[in-house]
């Protein structure tokens, strides 16, 4: 347990370093996509940075992470803040979501820096599962690394990628990759009004989409 505990406690410091101290602003930007009071599932909450932000805005949050060590740190962090409803933390991996929650259980499903750590097969499963767990009219918010659209920034991104990836591996023992066509993947799952907000010089995107709501057919 020693190293994982060490890893979990180092995670926050590592993330602050890797985002040049801007991780707090990214969490606020992501939480800004979710209306207060929503029933939210956060997949891969880690040490609870985004969870705290969501709970602080009055959302009812269920946060899951596969690492109990990360959740222990999240629990300590969340205990320090004053929220109307304290978030529910569950040790659960993505493939355990279907057996734990019913379809359509959440207004919003959100994940930050999770899909970029998954393989293509896992990513496909995670997106399918997230859409299943959304109620009709609910929103999916994915925040993650992307390739900048601007060619110059893309070159800078590639040039800085290797040392940053090596640093990330040393600090957090995880490796990641940028997401490809996440907007298209949301649309192909039937989500509507897919919008992208880019930050961090185009290398970080918040992509949000809405699951079609059931509509009454017009009466003749």
């Amino acid at each position, binding site marked *: *347990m*020693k*190293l*994982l505990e060490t890893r979990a406690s180092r995670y926050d410091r590592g993330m602050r370093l890797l985002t040049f101290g801007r991780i707090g602003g990214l969490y606020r930007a992501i939480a800004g996509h979710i209306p207060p009071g929503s029933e939210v599932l956060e997949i891969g909450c880690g040490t609870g940075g985004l969870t705290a932000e969501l709970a602080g805005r009055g959302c009812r949050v269920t946060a899951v992470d*596969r690492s109990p060590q990360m959740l222990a740190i999240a629990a300590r962090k969340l205990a320090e803040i004053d929220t109307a409803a304290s978030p529910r933390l569950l040790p659960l*991996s*993505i*493939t*355990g979501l*279907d*057996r734990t929650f019913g379809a359509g259980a959440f207004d919003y499903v959100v994940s930050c820096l999770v899909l970029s750590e998954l*393989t*293509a*097969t*896992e990513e496909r*499963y995670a997106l399918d599962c997230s859409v299943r767990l959304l109620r009709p009219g609910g929103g999916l918010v994915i925040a993650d690394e992307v390739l900048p659209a601007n060619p110059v920034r893309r070159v800078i991104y590639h040039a800085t990628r290797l040392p940053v990836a090596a640093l990330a591996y040393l600090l957090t023992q995880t490796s990641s990759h940028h997401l490809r066509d996440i907007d298209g993947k949301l649309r192909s799952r039937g989500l509507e009004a897919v919008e992208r907000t880019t930050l961090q010089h185009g290398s970080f995107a918040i992509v949000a989409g809405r699951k079609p709501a059931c509509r009454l057919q017009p009466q003749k």
Partner: protein
Amino acid sequence: MPSAAPEVTAARAAATVPPHRAWLRELVQLLFRSFPFHTEPGLRVFGTPGRSAPVFVTCNFDHTVRMVSRVLGRYDCYLLVAPTGGMNVWCASAGGHFGTDEVEAAIRLSNIEDFVDHHRLVLPRLAAPGVDTKELRRRTGWRAVFGPIEIGDLPAWLEGEFPHLVPDQVRFPARRRAAMGVGAALWPAGLIGFPAGLIEGWQTGLLAAVLGYLLSVLFALAYPYLPAEPGLRQAAALGGLLGAAAAGGAVVSGGAVAGPVFWGIALAALGLLIGLDFPSWSPTDVCKQQLLCFLYPATLAPAGFLPTVDEPACIDGCDICVRICPKGALTLNERSKAELIDPADCLSCYACVQQCPVDAIS
């Protein structure tokens, strides 16, 4: 084939890799054996499996998947590749990366339930420290059985004892020791060769690195026959001997004072690093060496863990722990209860604790 053809992730693509690229991949994965090499998790299909075809599970370490695929290619069967972070089966399972969650993930990611009518998985034996088979069955309805340790022993097991748990112990034959010697040499050769190159020029650095590889392979080959117990004492003795021999050799060859000092220190450090690190590469000592496993630390059991049997809870005559122990370190005593024969044989791998049906071992 089932009516709905399963999505195959990489099996057929792998078969089309040209020989020179396959050889290069083998070489790179051997030289950098201490790092994870991921392959896509999910479903692999071999032959034309029917709805009663066996379902095997393995890790997503590319080398392991290729080894397993070579054997499973002779059968009509399914292979589920679990997302274990690109790590090998044993390190992943003892380190908490190949457990119940990952087997559940392998089941869900592959949609295997659509293709077979049974619910029986064959897990790799060395996944026993991580996978709670009772919990797996509760979550998924799938019953797990453990195959033999070596994939090469799988055909005989399938023809004979399948699906029963057979006693099996880890082996470390010379060929594998040589391969592990090459893989393990990266750290000593790099840690000594690089600074040696900075101090004495690149030719000296290269020579030190080559010596590192040579010594590592020789140490690996001699490993089972060495007199001292693996660990600090063995490493210190090796470092001392090598350092003294190198310094002596440099003096005899008539170099300046700096020569004997440099080579004495360099070889002593090489010997110390090799002696300290190699036991963590050996399946006969691996999990005991927790402090030295930087990338794949065993995390389920605390360092120096030894199993304690709660005799009243232990089922009379149940020998699951005796069979599952990869070192044969457990036996049934005269009261038909499990007992650790010799603490020195225990690897602290946690398999007995995890697989006890009544949680009587802790």
